[in-house]
């Protein structure tokens, strides 16, 4: 890989200057490389991170059809990676005007990486540097332990989509501890409300009593306040201590829990596995925000490359070239979803509404359609508003909050349905719904969403690990269960159980044999599939999987 030449780098620096003026914020340094096809061959399996650890699966064609994005939270063909400095990759024969456009796109991505709070945990270190030392560590271990290193990598990767990404974020963004004690917080926030379920006036009375104690005895006030509570609720102390334990364990994700509590990994001879598992977890955490901000991130980059390119005085005369390329990237497909197009339009839409002051109570109170249409408070705050969104939102919030009927109408969006036309032997695509609600649901259903699986400590016995899949009307991929659990069992060193739901039966209309000549072709009848679920428990013990049904639902 070669760095771009000085001429091109100068263009990039010019872009940076203009982007900063427009309000984008990013670190000064960035690295731009020219990549050849050969480079890409090596880079793409490593998700464009040149220093990612080696793993044999990277060298094999990986079957991608099934749940590609569910399996990997990262895009192997990213042009810019979230490192310090940010690294981006280019074709070596891009004309200058095109580089200008791409540079703006890239700069907006960098701005997004470095300002969106969902990337908070990636801000304080350079991932490529970290990855390089991890890669060396793994290589060294591989030279000692051989293939067992790869087994550990494999098994850890098997559960790396269950990392506690949001927990990690919440740790990062937690407010500094208040001076009040935990016990006090617990008493008022949890104990009185959830445990005792006291009435509001009693609750207020307790607050008053507390204030009184503080006023009377100053430093000793809290003690005297609690003295009475211990008398009144003798169980309080025990419950509080239990809650502390529970809380600290709840925060661990599956990988952390295994690292912390596995008897197998605690053994001296197995302790070398821990850093490897740690690396896998860290790598997964690093990529998590990327897939959760795809629409926003691409929309943001497209918005800015359009806006900044058109203002750039250096590229005059290439407007038509730009228009052609740009519309290719950001046009709304007749059928299909394009994150560039959708994200960009939504940002323009939000900016427009905000400029007119339509995100206000005043506007919401308006019922008259004409008045709503004409409403314009001329706030001029649209630009600030989208910057706020870029800082605080992810795809889910972005879509859930801002895709409304006006947006759907303005861009003539709809949900597409497909059906088979037996007579014509064609698949028909039709406009299924133009309701914002349906469109939003369709978008949200397509977003990345790993299964929610927790560790049930009260159900784990004899050293076994009990995993609970909180069912959201989507079963797990059955074929993958066995090997995933096998890996967990290996790392855990004892049997592993998984409680999940799966299909008991599907009641569909039986395929009816049509007998032409005897009857007219049977019309396709739309029958909702009735799915009956059953709760099952898988058990992996000594590398053998068994399953039992624990509850079944009959509708």
């Amino acid at each position, binding site marked *: 890989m070669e760095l771009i030449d000085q001429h091109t780098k100068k263009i990039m620096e010019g872009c940076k200057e203009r982007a900063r003026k427009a309000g984008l914020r990013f670190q000064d340094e960035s690295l731009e490389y020219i990549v050849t096809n050969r480079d890409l*061959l090596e880079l793409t399996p490593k998700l464009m991170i040149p220093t990612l650890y080696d793993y044999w699966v990277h060298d094999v064609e990986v079957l991608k059809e099934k749940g590609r994005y569910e399996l990997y939270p990262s895009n192997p063909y990213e042009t810019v990676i979230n490192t310090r400095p940010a690294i981006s990759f280019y074709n070596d024969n891009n004309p200058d005007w095109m580089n200008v456009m791409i540079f703006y796109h890239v700069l907006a991505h960098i701005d997004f990486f470095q300002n969106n709070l969902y990337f908070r945990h990636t801000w304080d270190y350079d991932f490529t540097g970290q990855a390089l030392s991890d890669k060396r560590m793994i290589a060294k271990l591989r030279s000692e332990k051989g293939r067992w290193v790869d087994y550990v990598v494999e098994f850890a990767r098997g559960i790396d989509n269950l990392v506690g990404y949001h927990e990690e974020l919440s740790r990062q963004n937690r407010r500094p501890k208040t001076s009040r004690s935990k016990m006090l917080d617990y008493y008022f926030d949890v104990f009185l409300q959830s445990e005792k379920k006291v009435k509001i006036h009693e609750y207020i009375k307790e607050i008053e009593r507390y204030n009184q104690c503080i006023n009377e005895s100053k430093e000793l006030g809290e003690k005297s306040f609690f003295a009475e509570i211990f008398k009144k609720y003798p169980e309080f102390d025990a419950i509080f201590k239990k809650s502390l334990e529970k809380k600290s364990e709840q925060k661990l994700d599956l990988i952390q829990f295994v690292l912390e509590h596995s008897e197998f990994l605690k053994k001296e001879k197995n302790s070398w596995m821990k850093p490897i598992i740690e690396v896998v977890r860290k790598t997964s955490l690093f990529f998590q925000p990327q897939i959760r901000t795809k629409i926003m991130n691409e929309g943001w980059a497209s918005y800015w490359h359009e806006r900044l390119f058109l203002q750039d005085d250096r590229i005059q005369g290439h407007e038509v070239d730009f228009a052609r390329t740009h519309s290719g990237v950001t046009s709304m497909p007749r059928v299909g979803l394009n994150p560039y197009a959708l994200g960009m339009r939504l940002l323009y839409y939000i900016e427009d509404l905000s400029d007119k002051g339509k995100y206000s109570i005043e506007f919401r109170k308006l019922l008259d359609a004409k008045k709503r249409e004409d409403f314009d408070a001329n706030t001029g705050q649209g630009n600030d508003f989208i910057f706020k969104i870029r800082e605080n939102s992810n795809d889910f919030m972005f879509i859930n909050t801002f895709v409304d009927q006006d947006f759907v109408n303005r861009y003539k969006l709809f949900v597409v349905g497909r059906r088979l036309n037996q007579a014509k032997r064609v698949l028909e695509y039709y406009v299924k719904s133009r309701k914002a609600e349906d469109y939003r649901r369709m978008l949200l259903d397509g977003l990345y969403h790993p299964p929610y699986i927790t560790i049930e400590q009260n159900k784990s016995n004899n050293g076994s690990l009990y995993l609970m899949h909180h069912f959201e009307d989507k079963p797990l991929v059955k074929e993958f269960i066995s090997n995933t659990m096998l890996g967990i069992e290996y790392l855990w060193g004892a049997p592993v159980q*998984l409680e999940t739901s799966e299909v008991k039966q599907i009641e569909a209309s039986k395929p009816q044999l049509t007998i032409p000549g005897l009857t007219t072709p049977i019309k396709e009848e739309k029958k909702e599939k009735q799915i009956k679920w059953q709760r099952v428990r898988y058990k992996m013990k000594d590398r053998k999987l068994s399953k039992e049904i624990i509850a079944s639902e009959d509708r």
Partner: protein
Amino acid sequence: MNPKLKELYNKIKKNGLPPEQEQKILLELHDDATHDFADEPSDALQIADEAFRPTSQNIYAYNDLFDLQAISALQSSHNTSLRSIDELLERDKQREKDGFPRKINVGRLIKPGRGGKDKVVVVPSTVEEKFIHDTSLQAEEEQPYGGSGDGEEGEVIGEQPVRSPDVQGGTGPGQGEGGPHEMESNAYDLGKILTEKFELPNLKDKGKKRSLTRYTYDLTDKHRGFGQLLDKKATLRKIVETNMNLGNLTDISDIDLTRFLVSPKDLVYRILSREKDYESQAMVFFVRDYSGSMAGKSTVLVVAQHVLIYSWLLYQYAMQVETRFILHDTEATEVPDFYTYYNSKVAGGTQVSSAYRLVNEIVEKENLVRDYNIYIFHGTDGDDWDTDGKESIPQLKQMLTYANRVGITIAEHAHDKTNNSEVEKYLKKSGLLEEKKDLLRMDVMQEDADEPRLIEGIKHLISEKET
């Protein structure tokens, strides 16, 4: 309706038919499909498609490299994948020894368009298993798409032709796409992998060696006067002989070499010569049911399995495999190549006996028994108008007199999970599976079987001992 078929139907009906069976037959009888090749998308069609091209990509399939910079999303070529396949297989074997299941899949078949481009390529592939949501429960049609533009709710905005209700446009056998096969070398690789990886049995040398039209060249022949290599011992012997005749060598205890004469004709040379090569060779009959009921997955499965078997035999017989392809509905026909075999569309009714009869005829007429190890693999969905095998069984019995192995694959339809297709029933009833278990094997699978199941099936069909 074909009058011949009608006649057949009436005949069968006279003999009594269970209503279910009658329905199946009627269905095939009234199917107006034909056996021509699946049509390639013509240019005209493509232009029509231009206006309407649904992208099935989800939002995560977009990426900057490709969409912005048009750098093609490179995949490692299959050749580079192949290079390391030995290593991968070695690793996979080691996995098993370490007590973990194998992870490498092979035998993905790729079949691009016509015109010499078609290949069966071996691609090692694997999948990283995790707990992920299964979205396949949503039927294809229900999967929501996004769209934009004009159109009332409920209005049809585009159409995509489907060739068959069961199969999405043109990816499977019998449904188009494919080309004359240039698959030999790669199929050989596949056979090697199958043998090693899945421990498919190596064939025993049956001692039945037949000459081939292939020759090897070796310095085995002797020639006087000229040649490639002087055979010194033979030459010396000749010289001695000549000189004894000339009387130059009278006393064995007193040899005077100076009196010896060396005639040019005494020089004996080794000369390069053509040798017939003796090797066992195989003739494989692939027989496929292409009746109407085979539409969809059954056909895909059967053909996929036949490709794998073909590859395995190719490896076992060091390329010395000759293949014959036979398709049948109510009548059997031999087709010249794998392409036709693979791509012919389904239609018509089903009579298994017709195919068996044709195989027997070919074997007899060409006297193949003398020269070949004969294998017959038959793939069907198990439907047969000849419900109790009155005609098929005798033909099958005759086949078993000469064949090294007859393997019958039944890809059962998902909707009648009875384990009771006609072919299966009458095969079981005939007792041949027990009686001739060295020669006859049957493999019944569901039409949604996956690759490992296919390989398992092959093992069963070709193994020496019954598994």
